[in-house]
């Protein structure tokens, strides 16, 4: 179902778009607590590409993702979205972006259904069937109306990941999406990522987990960058 939907959303990128990177970072510099996390960081992310940000703990992976989403502005350098500065087209940029961070963004008092309804409404509302289908696909059938505080950590993470299924965003930015997921959950998410990439979407994610996906994985290693600079 999702594959069809995403195909229809991102189908047939025109040549000009295909040649142009979706997201581009130029000379990013970030310093935190008087320690340089990265400097002169350049990278490009194209449509239909999956990129894994690697690096040891504290190497600035989360900071990088938050900078790219515009949640963190302690940085220097340029972030370009489809060739134009992201800050100048914030609305379009945010409409194309889905970020799932360390903190899942799931309210403990509300049920998965209510949580997803709100998440969707912040971008573009979807009907209840889509929400139920998304929850079923992440393995939460029959949990739709249970308050999230009664769910396990892994299930809460699945509620957050169900957002990927109801979103129309082309760029997914995921910070450690595999933590707390069980073996089956990891497989499901890998499949989902591959589907999104196959449909022309892009994924930028951090994980220490060895990805086994059917698509090609680009790598951005912050530790190596630091050594080189």
């Amino acid at each position, binding site marked *: 179902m999702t594959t069809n939907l995403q195909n229809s959303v991102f189908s047939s990128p*025109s040549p000009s778009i295909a040649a142009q990177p979706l997201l581009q970072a130029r000379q990013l510099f970030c310093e935190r607590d008087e320690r340089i996390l990265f400097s002169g960081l350049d990278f490009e992310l194209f449509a239909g590409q999956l990129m894994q940000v690697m690096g040891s703990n504290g190497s600035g992976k989360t900071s990088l993702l938050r900078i790219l989403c515009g949640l963190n502005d302690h940085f220097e350098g340029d972030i370009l979205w489809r060739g134009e500065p992201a800050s100048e087209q914030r609305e379009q940029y945010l409409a194309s972006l889905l970020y799932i961070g360390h*903190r*899942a963004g799931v*309210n403990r008092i509300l049920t998965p259904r209510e949580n997803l309804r709100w998440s969707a409404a912040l971008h573009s509302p979807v009907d209840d069937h889509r929400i139920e289908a998304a929850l079923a696909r992440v393995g939460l059938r029959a949990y739709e109306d249970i308050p999230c505080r009664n769910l396990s950590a892994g299930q809460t993470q699945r509620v957050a990941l169900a957002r990927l299924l109801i979103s129309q965003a082309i760029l997914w930015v995921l910070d450690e999406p595999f933590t707390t997921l069980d073996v089956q959950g990891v497989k499901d998410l890998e499949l989902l990522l591959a589907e999104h990439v196959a449909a022309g979407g892009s994924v930028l994610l951090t994980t220490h987990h060895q990805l086994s996906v059917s698509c090609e994985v680009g790598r951005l290693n912050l530790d190596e960058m630091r050594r080189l600079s």
Partner: protein
Amino acid sequence: MSGDIRSEGNSNYELQQSVSTWTAFCATLKRDLLIAFKRRNDLLNPVMFFLIVVSLFPLGVSPDPMELTRISAGVVWVSALLASMLSLDNLYRADYEDGSLEQLLLSPQPLYFLVLAKNIAHWLISGLPVVILSPLLAYMLYLPAEAYTTMVLTLLIGTPVLSLFGSIGVALTVGLGSRGLILAVIVLPLTTPVLIIGAKAVTDVMFGVPLASHFALLGAILALALVMSPLASAAALRISVN
């Protein structure tokens, strides 16, 4: 995709945009109300606090009707202010801790309207019940009958201001580990003008002083708060999640 959007950048697109902003506004308002209804404490705390504080005055000061009439306007207004402040922390705290705040900030919809929705929800939960309950407490404090309408009206205009200005303070302090009194130090100077004018209006009406200027001032403050404070809250939230 953005190319498509730009090429059809006509009124149709703008209409669609404002519809989805309205949807996001309603969804946020509904979500916050739902959370409050599911957590009964949020709903009961401000009202109970208001009730308890006001009912302590006859015991602590004096049960003498003359004495109580003199202080009644001030007591009701101070208690309303404190009740509003007591519940302020709920406004962004849980959202900050569970990451919903980041999702709010990453919405393509204007943050102004989303923050405004949250502030309106806060007022509906903490302000409106106080306004509704105030005549009962005024009766207990021997407020003269001619001052009832004024008191309810000033509270009706004033309590939204408390929620709106309070929101700025919470947005600024939500990222801090130990907030303690900082919130009160930020919020009280902003809200005291409302307290002064509101309480003065209720006292003045007992002496037959014309009230046009009081209401004009209160209305002006509310208008200012409605326009400016969600913007300030939005900016403060951006700093807090940084």
